[in-house]
């Protein structure tokens, strides 16, 4: 590289191309790996090109810009969050399949190089936590929570755009790292001193640092936004103990985000200082202490587990009571348990490193603290079972996920208790037992929750139900695939097989890794089923349309409005008289009423802030990764200018005349009156237009 391009490209050169190494040192293995890596890179490039050409061809750029990218509507931002999560989910699942394939063939070798494998487990973990799980739950909270509490938007719609922009920038960075490699091999936890410059001088760790940092900033802002919305924007009469349980979990997750994201921001920022400015915070030399990083990371990492899982608990609570046709059992206990979990989550971080040599007393105390979390969690499980008890259970797709969750999750809880006993943890720490455990918590606990939520609320968001048959296939494939892929990992862990190992030399492991491979293939099938389900549903969208908006005989407020809801959610902000607000209205025959008057509605105006932050965020992070300082300064300058200019903006709202709202609402109400209500046996038929029969006490609908 000559000096004239150095200022432009920084340390980026041809060696960043995924096939460069194979050109320099062509061995069978390096060529195989180059083909795989280049294939992935081409997928990214082709995907981007298809989107660009498709939008141009269909002349949809203006539509995309006005209706989506600059929209401050929480519903659209939520959908974009979820779309991002699904794309990232697809990538990370494919990576997981490659890892399983490698370990299935990994006795004495396999086909992946150790570095390639290292990047796979690092990106898989990073994506699944920061760019699949976080955007997924953020998206669902974004969409559902304001509808559930009876408000028109989040407290800070533009900040919501910025959250999306930051997460998108982080995800873009991870995607770019496929084309301009490599990514970090330090695992999603990024422990120094392995991730310090001395051991890993390349761009990989920097990619990881900035992608994660963007994600944590995004989540902090989302957490603030959600918490303030729930505190300040509840509809009149929506008292705390009348909140739907999903909103309660959203609140707890939001509070955890506000308090638990900063530790990770600090950890990655300090690691960046070490790498960029030769600080010595976590180095082995000159008084650094890498144990500080590990404590900071898990001070984030453990609450993070509950950030991920609490919204799923909320979704399951809604699903269980809706599809059992029954009031949630033990509402108060569930709220208390959720709060208890949120508080306790800050007290157990040390159980992630029982083996680091601290005193046995400390280990024992943290082990017992960890078990305490099992109490509120157990209470929740039993509350859900008692919700089903004496219900009328429709085993539709969300309910399949929920039932799979409840039974698989307790097994994960069991192994969690095993790991929480320090004397046993000394044996299974850092083995595949640990990997099996946290997948056992996060796949049934988080992912099943998100997929159940998607099936549950999809008709609300798009006005038609997702196709049921392919949904069931996907759900069962997920459950079976999960069991086959991860139960063998428990055995491997007990047999002493470490995590993150590219190959092994013990023939006894082979049957287990082969079984896990089969499980991974079934999970891939499940992903395919999800795609087919989406395709079939969109094809049959007119048959499955539910314009009235209440396809499941729902209980909370989001079902009280049309599907899809108008951009202002509620023509008139509803008055709340009790728990399960909409069910109460239906029971009292007060649903679908004409309000006395339709006041004008003030809505936030479109803004480009989210897009600007997404672009400049990507540019700053990319420039930092490759030492392209001009790009960093330029993008940072643009961000600052945009923020200051935004401060000078005064036309930040627009007003919708009440007359227009009235017309839309009366039209919809006329449609309600013209629709034939159905009972639950017709739920999955085209007769379901989203209007259930009014409830009669004790009778089965």
């Amino acid at each position, binding site marked *: 590289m000559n000096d004239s391009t150095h200022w432009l490209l920084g340390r980026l050169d041809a060696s960043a191309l995924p096939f460069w190494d194979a050109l320099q040192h062509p061995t069978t293995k390096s060529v195989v790996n180059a083909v795989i890596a280049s294939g992935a890179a081409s997928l990214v490039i082709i995907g981007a090109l298809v989107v660009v050409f498709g939008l141009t061809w269909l002349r949809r750029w203006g539509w995309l810009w006005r209706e989506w990218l600059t929209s401050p509507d929480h519903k659209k931002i939520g959908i974009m969050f979820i779309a991002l999560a699904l794309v990232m989910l697809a990538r990370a699942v494919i990576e997981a399949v490659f890892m399983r394939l490698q370990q299935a063939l990994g006795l004495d070798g396999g086909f992946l190089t150790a570095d390639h494998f290292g990047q796979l487990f690092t990106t898989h973990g990073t994506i699944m936590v920061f760019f699949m799980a976080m955007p997924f739950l953020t998206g669902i909270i974004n969409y559902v929570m304001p509808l559930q509490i009876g408000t028109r938007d989040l407290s800070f719609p533009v900040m919501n755009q910025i959250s999306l922009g930051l997460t998108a920038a982080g995800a873009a960075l991870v995607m770019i790292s496929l084309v301009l490699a490599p990514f970090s091999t330090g695992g999603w936890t990024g422990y120094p001193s392995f991730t310090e410059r001395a051991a890993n001088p390349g761009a990989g760790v920097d990619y990881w640092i900035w992608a994660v940092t963007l994600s944590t900033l995004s989540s902090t802002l989302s957490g603030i936004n959600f918490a303030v919305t729930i505190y300040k924007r509840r509809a009149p009469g929506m008292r705390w103990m009348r909140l739907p349980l999903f909103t309660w979990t959203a609140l707890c997750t939001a509070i955890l985000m506000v308090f638990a994201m900063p530790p990770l921001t600090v950890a990655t*920022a300090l690691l960046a200082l070490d790498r960029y400015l*030769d600080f*010595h915070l976590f180095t082995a030399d000159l008084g650094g202490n890498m144990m500080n990083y590990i404590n900071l990371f898990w001070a984030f990492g453990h609450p993070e587990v509950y950030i991920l899982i609490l919204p799923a608990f909320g979704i399951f609570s809604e699903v269980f009571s809706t599809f059992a046709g029954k009031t949630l059992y033990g509402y108060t206990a569930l709220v208390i348990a959720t709060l208890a979990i949120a508080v306790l989550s800050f007290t157990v971080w040390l159980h992630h490193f029982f083996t680091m040599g601290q005193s046995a007393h400390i280990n024992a105390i943290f082990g017992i603290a960890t078990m305490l979390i099992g109490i509120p969690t157990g209470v929740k499980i039993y509350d859900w079972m008692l919700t089903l008890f004496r219900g009328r259970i429709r085993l539709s797709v969300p309910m399949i996920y929920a039932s799979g969750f409840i039974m698989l999750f307790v097994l994960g809880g069991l192994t969690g208790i095993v790991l929480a006993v320090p004397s046993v943890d000394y044996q299974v720490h850092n083995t595949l037992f640990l990997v099996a455990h946290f997948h056992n918590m996060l796949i049934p606990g988080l992912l099943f929750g998100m997929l159940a939520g998607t099936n549950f609320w999809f008709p609300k968001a798009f006005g038609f139900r997702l196709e049921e048959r392919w949904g069931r296939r996907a759900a069962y494939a997920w459950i079976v695939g999960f069991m086959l892929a991860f139960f063998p990992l428990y055995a491997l862990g007990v047999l002493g097989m470490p995590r993150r190992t590219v190959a092994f030399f013990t023939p006894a492991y082979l049957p287990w890794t082969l079984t896990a491979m089969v499980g991974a293939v079934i999970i891939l099938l499940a992903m395919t089923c999800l795609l087919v389900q989406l395709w079939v549903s969109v094809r049959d969208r007119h048959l499955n349309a539910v314009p009235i908006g209440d396809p499941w005989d729902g209980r909370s407020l989001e079902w009280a409005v049309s599907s899809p809801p108008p951009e202002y959610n509620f023509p008139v902000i509803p008055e709340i008289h009790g728990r399960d607000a909409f069910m109460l209205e239906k029971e009292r025959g007060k649903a679908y009423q004409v309000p006395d008057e339709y006041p004008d509605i003030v809505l936030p105006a479109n803004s480009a802030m989210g897009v600007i932050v997404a672009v400049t965020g990507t540019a700053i992070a990319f420039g930092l990764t490759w030492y392209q300082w001009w790009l960093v300064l330029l993008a940072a300058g643009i961000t600052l200018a945009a923020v200051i200019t935004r401060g000078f903006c005064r036309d930040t709202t627009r007003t919708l005349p009440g007359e227009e709202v009235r017309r839309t609402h009366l039209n919809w109400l006329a449609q309600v009156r013209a629709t034939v209500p159905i009972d639950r046996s017709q739920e999955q038929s085209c007769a379901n237009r989203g209007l259930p029969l009014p409830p009669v006490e004790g009778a089965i609908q």
Partner: protein
Amino acid sequence: MSALTARQTAATDAPARHPGINLGHAHREGEESREEMVFGFWVFMMSDMILFGLLFATYVTMLGGTAGGPGPKELFDMRGAFFETMLLLVSSFTFGMASLALKYRDDRRALVGWLLITLLLGLGFVAHELYDFHKMFEAGGVPSRSGFLSAFFSLVPLHGLHVSVACVWLIALLGQLAVHGLDAQTKNGLIRLAILWHFLDIVWIGIFSLVYLGGLA
């Protein structure tokens, strides 16, 4: 409404809707959104507080990590730190005066005057802190020298960075005042900036006591 009646109504029947100065009835326009924004800003401050808290904790654990390099006694200039403390404390006072002017006075002259003084004090603080760092660098106190110095330079300059950002924000708000006058949005901005400004004061008191005074103890 005259300034006097504004004060009376505010004192009698306006409950405090958020911590800190509430503008009260004289500033009814935008009251709802202000309440929400200020509350949100307080939540953000809590998050920021965690950030500083963790850096304080890191600093404390790294006190022993001087690796044979210069320590607090060799590097810290108490007179400089005390001067900076005074600058910041006085700036908090002047911002308080600006807030009072915002609440009780109709003319903008007093408000702008107090804000300009605050800005000068803030910039003075940043300049003097940079000068202090420069002196530390000359004495061999660079962050790459030891874990202790790394921890110092990740904590104290972060506060300085916050003050710098607050100064930029103040300039931007003065610009908004010039362009749009004292409308609801500018008021919202000033109230939030005031919270940040006092918060940074508190953080600095923590730094002064724990880092500077503690370093010499």
